[in-house]
């Protein structure tokens, strides 16, 4: 969706629009942070989730993104669509967050946790339904491929916008997108088949129980 920067209203105190660069009278007025926050919070939130930021950190990292946006708003050219630029900021903040050592937490291994070694088919089905399947699938891609896939197939940005937002050549975008699509499709297919098997097993177990009671 193209975000049209609000036009300059009047010279009242409190108008929420201001020109970012006084010397560049030809430039459109930059949208203010509050307006961006209102309109794009969900966009940032969901893309951070897709980029693999865990739920416990989502609010903090979202705040980091908007702080970064507030700091660099003067760099944004209002003639360009907002969302790709915003995704670029989001991607960089998410990458930094993931790189930080303090954000690296130990993930309990199923092999070491007897509680999750052998769930029943019903439990496994419920667990798989409750998990964020998209995030699980995307999590199996590295972040560079993931970012391109999210921008192209989830956020529906075109390749030129992706290249500009991520500061990579267009050919690289296509290359990463090709790889990401193949892998994402395969992972999604595997998960769908796995869920179908679990559902069938649960159904079979349910049928057997009914037969035993009869």
């Amino acid at each position, binding site marked *: 969706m193209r975000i049209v920067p609000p036009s300059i209203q009047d010279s009242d105190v409190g108008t929420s629009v201001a020109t970012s660069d006084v010397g560049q009278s030809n430039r459109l007025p930059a949208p203010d942070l509050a307006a961006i926050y209102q309109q794009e*919070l969900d966009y940032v939130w969901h893309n951070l989730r897709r980029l693999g930021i865990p739920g416990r950190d989502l*609010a903090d990292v979202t705040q980091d993104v908007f702080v970064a946006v507030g*700091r660099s708003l003067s760099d944004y050219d209002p003639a360009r669509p907002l969302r790709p630029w915003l995704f670029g900021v989001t991607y960089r903040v998410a990458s930094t967050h993931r790189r930080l050592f303090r954000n690296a937490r130990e993930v309990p291994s199923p092999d070491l946790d007897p509680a999750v070694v052998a769930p029943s088919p019903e439990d496994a089905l419920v667990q798989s339904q409750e998990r*964020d399947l*998209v995030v699980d699938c995307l999590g199996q891609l590295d972040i560079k491929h993931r970012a391109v896939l999210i921008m192209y197939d989830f956020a529906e940005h075109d390749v030129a916008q992706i290249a500009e937002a991520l500061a990579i050549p267009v050919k690289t975008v*296509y290359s990463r997108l090709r790889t990401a699509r193949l892998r994402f499709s395969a992972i999604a297919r595997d998960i769908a088949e796995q869920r179908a098997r679990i559902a069938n097993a649960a159904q079979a177990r349910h049928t057997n129980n009914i037969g035993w009671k009869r």
Partner: protein
Amino acid sequence: MKDELPPLSSAALALIAGDADIAGPPPRVRRQIWRGTTRALATAGVLLPSAAAAKIATVGAKVTIGISAGTKAIIAIAISATVAGTTAGVMMQRRASVARVAAAHVSTATQNGRAPTPQRTPDVAIAPPLPPLPPVAAVPEVIAEPTPVAPARVPVVAATVDRPRVTTARTAGGRMPGAQSAGAERTAGERHLLDDALAALGRRDFAAARQNLDRHTSAFPGGRLAEERDALLVFVFAAQGDGTAARFQAAHFRARYPGSVFQRGVAAALADLP
């Protein structure tokens, strides 16, 4: 090259379609994020657009806690007019601005019962860090909160900054222990009346504005918001064009509140009276 892209599998397309239905952050988290963002930017000294509101944010360091946002907007308008050095037509512009600000105030209050903030477009200006007020640590408290509910734009009420709050002897919620008392209800009642007066002023319904201010005077003669009430009275007289009453009330105000943050606004209101 786009044609060479491999198609997504049906399972992948289903996942992408399902992901679009996932809800965003709840309202409480939205407010928290915005509050944290503005605080972080203010601490970093990042000055966002709306220069006039930024000036008010600086002045707002003197604003006592409890002054309603609408009145702060009036002060903002008056001070910005003074700062700009304009003489002719300032009063008319100020009146128009007051009407717009108050109209926004009224519409939001109407939508939202008595609490105008949740539906209000968030304030914009972020104040630079305030000078420290010994012995309190100088962490500015930005009032502005977002309302990420509707894309419709409402004229923004000027931003301001409260005096840094004393952190000692306060609970995590920012309230004194046991402060949920009649005092809070009393202040809420005062604000209710003043907000109504401000809304009426925005509609240029001077009689209603006076009526609300008179009710405040009789109900809360020494109320916490008496200073704001008396300033509003000057604004009402000035907007009404009643120079004699406005000047009389302003003289009374100056004598009673010599160090008031409303002084400049009151002076600006009188500046263009005949």
